[in-house]
């Protein structure tokens, strides 16, 4: 890049811009007020001819910085792709002419809006530079898979087939996990009528035969250091030896355990050997090896069996698991078939409150009914062992018979899954209890870390709910808050083998993307391909640690002098650190306190007698800004008083912008960000939450300025709010007119 | 040579002096206009209706219908059977389905039929008259002969159960079938939307449990009335009878003042096609339909 900075502004006249706006006046604004060295208009800027004009200016005029006044920054990104240059966009189409009425009365305010966006674009571009990419790249293409069950084996095989070497770490002495302990699996192929071979032996054989997959058995991860593309992982084996592997990305497939049936004495577990959990029944089936199933107590063939669904699950009382594990209904159906397929005369009853059979389980359920498995809708109260049989006492929910009972030889408890997710880093002082049980007597030993991450935020991936590992649950299920680390299978949410395999395949692809991005110094999800990264001016840093604490992705450690130490490859470029920094020393080359701040200051604020208030909108670029663009596409009109600046996340909003805006005489400030808290939709998980937390302090600032609290408004916006957002803007504009103009205009 | 020919299964209620005799009168007139030839199956017998289950059981029920199949096939080979009664159609169609589905049932049926000197080779298609009108003739053919459109008259198309469920008219929705409304509109009337279009009239329970059935009938009549209908139209003889003849009892019991004529689609069509009140069987109404009589026979 040339050392000489030369800024050019281009005003497009296509898509109706030329008819609705006075383009010459806008060129004039860019030159006179935006003070760019070169300003031109063009009839059709995204055409080949228009793009060639810009390219020619870069080549012949030495233009380094480009401001395009045309459509939204989200449109025509391929035409306006100049990777060697800094590029800013003024949104005159979706943001101005499409949301304003095409009338004579509206012409003036529409033109004012456009002129302000040109001023803002020119101000922004001057504060930007073209991002050069993260120099601290890593080049390891190896995928580490932690856990050798079905999820882990699937990830390993998929990665290897795609050409990436794999290191597979399994804590036990053999591969296969829980699936290897099953007699048969739930069918995944037509006609979904009978239990099928688990396929585990075949997967194990494939792994063993694959020279691209290195397997460590009886091994754990002792230490994980570094960042995507350059993780340094120490693997400790039972023998005491420690191996070090260079790793590009990590798949954590540490699975789940059955909920401990010992916590269910009322259901007879522990009181009679003839009460087993689902794992116990698989063991019986394996022992029977296709022959009749035998009662553990006396070795006689089982003539009747009852399955108790939701045993210790979906418990609203807080004593047991509160959630549904999702796979156990199909598992009980499968196990009931173990009996019926061998001997149709064995009475098999499944006692359920709600039968949930995801996937093709409905066909499987039907098949079990055809085979004569009895399904009774009932809530089991207790199982009492008798001399020769077990009595299942239940409330028949259809006949409302509270004293219904069943005499059986064997009872199977469907107890559900508890994830092996390691240490809950967000609650280090809380007793570490599985499944959310609060009873002090059941508190278990603190779990051992799985990844032993050398991250400031703690040794494992954060957990989302009920101990399951983090995941952007609604939109991006594989993404954790640790870049390059993906959790798959039942450690992420309860699931069966079919779901785990799909999960592992999807996450493996994401891990491969992370490896490739890390090599090129680019961001991963959601700003994938972004070459900018946070830079810190350490000489101004006060070591307050806000950035290191608040970074949702654990990207920032502290060095030995307690200054922030950025691991760029872990960074998602959300700018939460930038929003947090009280001394404003963190910035990106193309996004900084200055790029936004100068735009705010560039807006022409009419005097207080003009009846033209100005409202600043800081809109999240992931949901709110696209919603606004789409509102434009639908021609959903909104007030001409607003000036919108996209932000990477509400978390990146530095409160100085708001203070500056109010001081500059804006009459109101609106912040638009994603839903936070439970069922959050923030692409950066915690960004909008942190942003809102900081904004909650803004009231003090308003009071100090002697301003109404309505001058700043926070709005939750989802991408689909195409009609709602314009309505909210207009309401707010009316409110501002009610309150009156800001007293700060004349200053 | 008629446009279409069918083996006709009128059913017990359509016989002379029986509860749906006016249905047959109007069907004859309608078919004449539409050039449809229907020939009664010689010596046809009762289908035993849906209530036949309790005493009849399974095989005897199917055998009764099978006798009609055998007779139709013997005397009118190649012709579809067409029924005007919903229960006849349903019973016969159900038997056809079961016999074609189960070789054991068919074998037993053949053995029983032997006692009456009959046997089945292929079971004819079993159609309802409404199917013949819609599928074989088509809406254009039904609209063409309209001379006296029933303009300004508001009808509630009461489809009821057995021409609608479980088989129904092809392409229709069980919850809101539209064919009857469309028939009403084809002859120039207005079909009012109302919410009891497919409610059960009580069926045979009108005889055995009159209070229960009349509660249901009241809902149907009331809804038709509330939605502005002047008359109710139906394709089913039992629906027609139940909804028409118990209005007096319902008025006594519920203090209502219903007096809504209940007609067959074939009566509407006959009148619209220029037929007289007699040809349309309007003299067979227990609750007279003066507005329709006024149009009937208009030159």
């Amino acid at each position: 890049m040339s050392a000489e900075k030369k800024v050019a502004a281009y005003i497009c006249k296509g898509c109706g811009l030329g008819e609705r706006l006075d383009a010459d006046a806008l060129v004039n604004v860019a030159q006179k007020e935006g003070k760019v060295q070169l300003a031109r208009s063009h009839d059709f800027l995204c055409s080949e001819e228009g793009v060639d004009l810009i390219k020619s200016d870069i080549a012949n005029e030495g233009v380094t910085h480009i401001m395009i006044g045309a459509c939204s920054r989200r449109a025509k990104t391929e035409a306006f792709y100049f990777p060697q240059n800094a590029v800013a966009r003024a949104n005159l189409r979706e943001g101005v002419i499409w949301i304003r009425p095409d009338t004579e009365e509206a012409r003036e305010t529409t033109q004012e809006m456009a002129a302000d966006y040109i001023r803002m674009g020119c101000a922004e571009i001057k504060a930007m530079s073209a991002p050069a990419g993260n120099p601290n790249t890593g080049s390891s293409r190896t995928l580490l898979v932690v856990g050798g069950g079905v999820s882990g084996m699937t990830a390993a095989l998929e990665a290897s087939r795609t050409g990436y070497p794999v290191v597979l770490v399994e804590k036990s002495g053999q591969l296969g996990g829980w699936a290897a302990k099953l007699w048969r699996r739930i069918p995944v192929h037509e006609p979904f009528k009978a239990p099928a071979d688990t396929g585990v032996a075949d997967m194990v054989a494939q792994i063993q035969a694959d020279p691209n997959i290195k397997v460590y058995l009886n091994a754990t991860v002792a230490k994980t250091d570094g960042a995507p593309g350059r993780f340094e992982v120490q693997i400790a084996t039972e023998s005491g030896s420690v191996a070090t592997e260079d790793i590009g990305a990590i798949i954590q497939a540490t699975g789940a355990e059955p909920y401990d049936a010992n916590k269910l004495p009322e259901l007879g577990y522990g009181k009679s050997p003839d009460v087993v959990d689902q794992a116990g029944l698989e063991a019986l089936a394996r022992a029977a090896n296709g022959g009749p199933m035998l009662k553990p107590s006396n070795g006689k063939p089982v003539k009747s069996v009852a399955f108790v669904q939701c045993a210790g699950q979906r418990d609203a009382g807080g004593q047991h698991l509160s959630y549904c594990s999702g796979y156990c209904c199909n598992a009980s159906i499968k196990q009931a078939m173990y009996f019926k397929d061998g001997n149709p005369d064995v009475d098999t009853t499944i006692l359920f409150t709600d039968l949930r059979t995801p996937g093709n389980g409905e066909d499987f359920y039907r098949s079990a009914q055809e085979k004569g498995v009895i399904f009774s809708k009932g809530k089991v109260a207790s199982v009492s062992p008798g001399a020769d049989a077990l009595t299942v006492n239940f409330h028949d929910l259809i006949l409302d018979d509270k004293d219904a009972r069943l005499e059986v030889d064997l009872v199977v408890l469907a107890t559900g899954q508890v994830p092996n997710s390691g240490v809950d880093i967000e609650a280090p002082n809380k007793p570490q209890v599985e499944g959310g049980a609060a009873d002090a007597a059941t508190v278990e030993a603190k779990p051992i870390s799985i990844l032993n991450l050398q991250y400031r935020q703690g040794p494992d991936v954060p957990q989302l709910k009920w101990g399951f590992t983090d995941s952007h649950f609604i939109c991006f299920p594989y993404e954790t808050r640790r870049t390059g680390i993906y959790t798959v299978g039942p450690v992420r949410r309860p699931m069966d083998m079919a779901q785990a395999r799909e999960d592992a395949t999807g996450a493996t692809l994401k891990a491969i993307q992370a490896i490739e991005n890390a090599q090129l110094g680019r961001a991963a999800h959601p700003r994938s391909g972004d070459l900018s990264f946070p830079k810190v001016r350490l000489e101004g840093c006060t070591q307050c640690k806000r950035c290191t604490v608040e970074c949702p992705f654990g990207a920032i450690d502290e060095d030995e002098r307690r200054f922030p130490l950025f691991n760029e490859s872990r960074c998602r470029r959300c700018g939460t650190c930038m929003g947090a920094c009280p001394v404003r020393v963190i910035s990106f080359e193309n996004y900084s306190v200055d790029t936004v701040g100068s735009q705010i200051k560039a807006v022409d604020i009419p005097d207080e007698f003009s009846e033209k208030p100005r409202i600043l909108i800081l809109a999240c670029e992931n949901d709110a800004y696209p919603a606004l663009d789409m509102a434009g596409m639908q021609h959903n009109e909104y007030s001409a008083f607003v000036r919108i600046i996209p932000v990477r996340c509400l978390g990146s909003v530095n409160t100085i912008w708001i203070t500056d805006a109010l001081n500059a005489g804006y009459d109101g400030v609106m912040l638009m960000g994603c839903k936070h808290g439970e069922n959050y939709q923030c692409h950066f998980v915690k960004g909008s939450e942190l942003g809102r937390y900081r904004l909650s302090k803004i009231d003090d600032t308003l009071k100090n300025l002697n301003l109404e609290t309505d001058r700043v408004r926070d709005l939750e916006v989802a991408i689909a709010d195409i009609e709602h957002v314009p309505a909210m803007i207009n309401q707010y504009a009316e409110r501002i007119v009610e309150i009156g103009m800001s007293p700060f205009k004349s200053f | 040579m008629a446009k279409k020919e069918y083996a006709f299964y009128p059913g017990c209620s359509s016989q002379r002096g029986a509860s749906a005799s006016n249905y047959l009168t109007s069907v004859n007139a309608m078919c004449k206009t539409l050039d449809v030839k229907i020939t009664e199956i010689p010596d046809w017998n009762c289908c035993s209706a849906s209530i036949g289950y309790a005493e009849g059981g399974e095989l005897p029920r199917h055998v009764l219908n099978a006798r009609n199949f055998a007779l139709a096939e013997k005397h009118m080979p190649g012709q579809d059977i067409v029924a005007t009664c919903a229960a006849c159609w349903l019973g016969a169609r159900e038997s056809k389905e079961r016999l074609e589905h189960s070789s054991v049932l068919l074998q037993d049926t053949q053995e029983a039929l032997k006692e009456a000197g009959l046997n089945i080779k292929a079971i004819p298609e079993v159609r309802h008259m409404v199917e013949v009108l819609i599928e074989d003739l088509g809406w254009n053919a039904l609209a063409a002969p309209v001379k006296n459109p029933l303009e300004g008259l508001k009808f509630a198309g009461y489809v009821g159960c057995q021409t609608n469920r479980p088989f129904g008219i092809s392409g229709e929705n069980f919850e809101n079938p539209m064919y009857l409304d469309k028939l009403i509109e084809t002859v120039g009337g207005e079909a009012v939307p109302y919410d009891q279009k497919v409610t059960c009239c009580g069926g045979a329970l009108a005889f055995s449990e009159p209070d229960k059935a009349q509660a249901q009938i009241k809902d149907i009549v009331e809804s038709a009335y509330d939605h502005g209908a002047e008359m109710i139209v139906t394709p089913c003889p039992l629906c027609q009878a139940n909804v028409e003849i118990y209005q007096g009892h319902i008025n006594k019991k519920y203090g209502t003042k219903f007096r809504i004529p209940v007609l067959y689609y074939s009566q509407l069509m006959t009148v619209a096609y220029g037929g007289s009140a007699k040809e349309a069987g309007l003299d067979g109404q227990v609750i007279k339909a003066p507005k329709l009589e006024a149009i009937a026979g208009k030159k």
Partner: protein
Amino acid sequence: MSANAQMATKYKNNFLKEVEEQVEMGEWVKMCMQCGVCSGSCPTNFHPGWEHPPQEIFMMIRAGKREEVLTSPSMWMCTSCYNCIVRCPRKLPITHIMHGLANYAHRLGVAPKMQPTRSFAKLFWNNCVKTGRVNELKLSVGLYFKDGLSQGIRNGMAMKDVALGLLKAKRLNPFELFGGHKCKDQNGIHAMLKKARELEEKRKALKAAA
């Protein structure tokens, strides 16, 4: 031993199996998934005396409540509207199962004695198979007099207006009482139905014996 006790013994109180083998469409009972759409769809579900909707009947069969099911008046409430059939997400022929259960209880002689629909159904069948065609007048008269002469006259009086209306509309023929419509081959029909009944009973007995 009564027919009822014989069947109970033969099936060793495995009532579901008994229903599967002896009741028309009984093999479908096990396929019910207990959603309750049938119960909500039944037009009679708001009437008093409606003990058990189909969903419950199916559950009771599975729970082996033989006596309660067979003596229940619930199946006799069926109006044959077929709403349950078309709405059942599992495509159970619920109407036919209800008919089949009623027929079975009737055959075993355990169906409720005074159940009016049971009486009417018997009357209807006998009426229609006698001549091959229904005699509506005899059917009505038979219905009114099922509970004795005096009740019959009362019933007849109550229905007088209805009958008069039909009479005036020529939809009721008083001469039907003395003959009326009939099939020609009545002997053939009677022989055919006798045979059908024999065959059906044979098949059911074979199943019970297996």
